[in-house]
């Protein structure tokens, strides 16, 4: 069965070996089963992608119907030479750099520790995972309140620690992005935590038992068994995380609306502002296509790495 379904090559060979049913026996029912999903897939993923690519070459406006006048590469030229575009891409990258390493390392540490604790796992899952299912709006309202300058919890903690003039985290261009990143770390670590816990389950216990009999310390076990065997999970988490960070919108929109100044404005923020505030959806599409290419490239790199890993494995 597994050979029949995992690859169509398997299905072909099975049929060729004299299987009861010919190669394309199910043409009509298969397309009927696929039709509803494929319709939605085409309408809300494929067509918008194509339309986005086309309108990026036109002076399309949300205020008017139709594509508008042809612009050639003007939208791209504008974006690639505009200070704001590069600033916002830099902010996006900044956010990615602040969030990805702790979200990978801490999630790994938490999962390895939780996997060793025999009782009360439900408690850790509750503590780390529940924030992940909360709406970003809830997260933002909670953290804006914690960061409230003067009387918020974070300012109070700084005062207790002897800092007479606490930093207003979100009001200072130097720290605003760090503030958003901390809220994001708190919010999303549960997802990676669960992925790592699931990965840890797949490591056979015998490996650890054999290592323990050989007298290895727990550190050595983590170094030589856990980390290498979780490398696939780690590369998956890193890529998922980078892509998610490049698409950041909610927290910034809700916590700082891109401010103070434009110090936390990110790529999606630029896209939505250009389209819905300046009504220039053609220019917004050009920015979206550029971001799209970056994300696609990262996803493609991961595919290549994974293929290499499979080949060497």
């Amino acid at each position, binding site marked *: 069965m597994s050979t029949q379904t995992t690859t169509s090559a398997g299905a072909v060979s099975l049929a060729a070996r004299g299987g009861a049913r010919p190669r394309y026996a199910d043409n009509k029912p298969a397309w009927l089963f696929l039709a509803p999903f494929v319709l939605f897939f085409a309408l809300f993923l494929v067509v918008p992608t194509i339309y986005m690519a086309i309108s990026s070459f036109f002076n399309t406006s949300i205020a008017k119907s139709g594509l508008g006048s042809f612009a050639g590469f003007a939208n791209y030229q504008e974006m690639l030479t505009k200070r704001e575009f590069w600033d916002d891409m830099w902010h996006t990258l900044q956010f990615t750099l602040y969030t990805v390493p702790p979200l990978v390392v801490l999630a790994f540490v938490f999962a390895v520790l939780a996997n*060793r604790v025999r009782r009360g796992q439900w408690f850790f899952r509750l503590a780390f995972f529940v924030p992940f299912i909360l*709406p970003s709006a809830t997260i933002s309202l909670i953290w804006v309140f914690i960061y409230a300058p003067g009387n918020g919890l974070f300012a109070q903690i700084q005062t207790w620690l002897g800092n007479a003039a606490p930093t207003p985290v979100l009001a200072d261009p130097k720290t605003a992005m760090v503030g958003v990143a901390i809220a994001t770390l708190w919010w999303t670590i549960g997802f990676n935590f669960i992925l790592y816990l699931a990965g840890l389950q797949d490591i056979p216990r015998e490996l650890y038992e054999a290592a323990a009999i050989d*007298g290895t310390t727990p550190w050595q076990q983590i170094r030589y068994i856990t980390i290498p065997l979780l490398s696939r999970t780690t590369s998956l988490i890193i890529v998922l995380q980078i892509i998610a960070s*490049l698409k950041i*919108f909610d927290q910034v929109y809700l916590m700082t609306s891109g401010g103070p100044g434009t110090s936390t404005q990110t790529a999606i923020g630029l896209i939505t502002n250009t389209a819905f505030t300046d009504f220039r959806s053609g220019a917004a599409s050009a920015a979206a296509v550029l971001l799209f290419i970056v994300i696609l490239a990262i996803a493609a790199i991961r595919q290549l790495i994974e293929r290499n890993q499979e080949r060497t494995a």
Partner: protein
Amino acid sequence: MATTTGSGISAAAPPARAPRTPSGNSTRTFNIVCGVVLGVFAVVWLIPSLWAIKTSFTTNAVSALGTPAILKDTSPTLASYLALLEGGDIWNWYLASFLTSAITVVLTVVFASMAGYALSRLRFRGRNVVFGVMLLGIMIPGQVLIVPIFEGLGAVHLLNTYWAVILPQVPAVIAVFVFKQFFDGLPVELEEAARLDGAGYWRIYRSVIMPLSKPVISAMGILTFVNVWNNLLLPLFVVSNPKLMTIPVGLATVQGSFGQRYSDIQASSLLGALPLVILFLIFQRRIVEGVAGTGLKG
């Protein structure tokens, strides 16, 4: 609480055997240290939520005074919650979020499982093409498409309807692959028996495959529900009528309009999340399995 990720897969040697190995005692000490470190982190992780809960149960007058006043306050009150529930806004938001999430779940689960069934079980021309295009589809970052989706919905006059929130979220490609993966693991014999009895494909899908797929159906259903409930970007731009706002969009409008009423703000943020927390407490295993499935098998 049955913990699938729990004791059974603990990396350490079982307690009865631990003392026999030379490193048994140090392993036990190590495990205790692990537990303590993790406990500290877990408590740190709980502080923001507990702080929001504590604030929501004080009065606006007290919370406006700041952190020390909130900490000292010892007379919890439901005033903020009652005011919100009387106001009516939150009920509109609940209705919008429930309707859009529930309808999207039904459409996604039915359509994605049908597509997954075809890709897993049926042999047809173009299978590889469909498979490849869908794989590419996983990589398409949905948020980036907000502008063309907005324009498309505007062109067919669906802006400011629930459908504008529902329809673009139906094609969750990852769900197709999770379903396909699950169907691949089902024994083929039952299907063959049904086929001998004269059952058609639709009948097999409905009466054989789907009843066997309850775990993956509920996992995908709950995850889709959480995703749609929490989506901010799409409803923020395709819905401007306050009556149709979902919880996240409604909450986004709260901060400005409430000014310094910190208790009300925290109460509304927690009310917005409450249904999901309840969902988590009831279905936590399914949610956790769903996350593990989307990550590892996608």
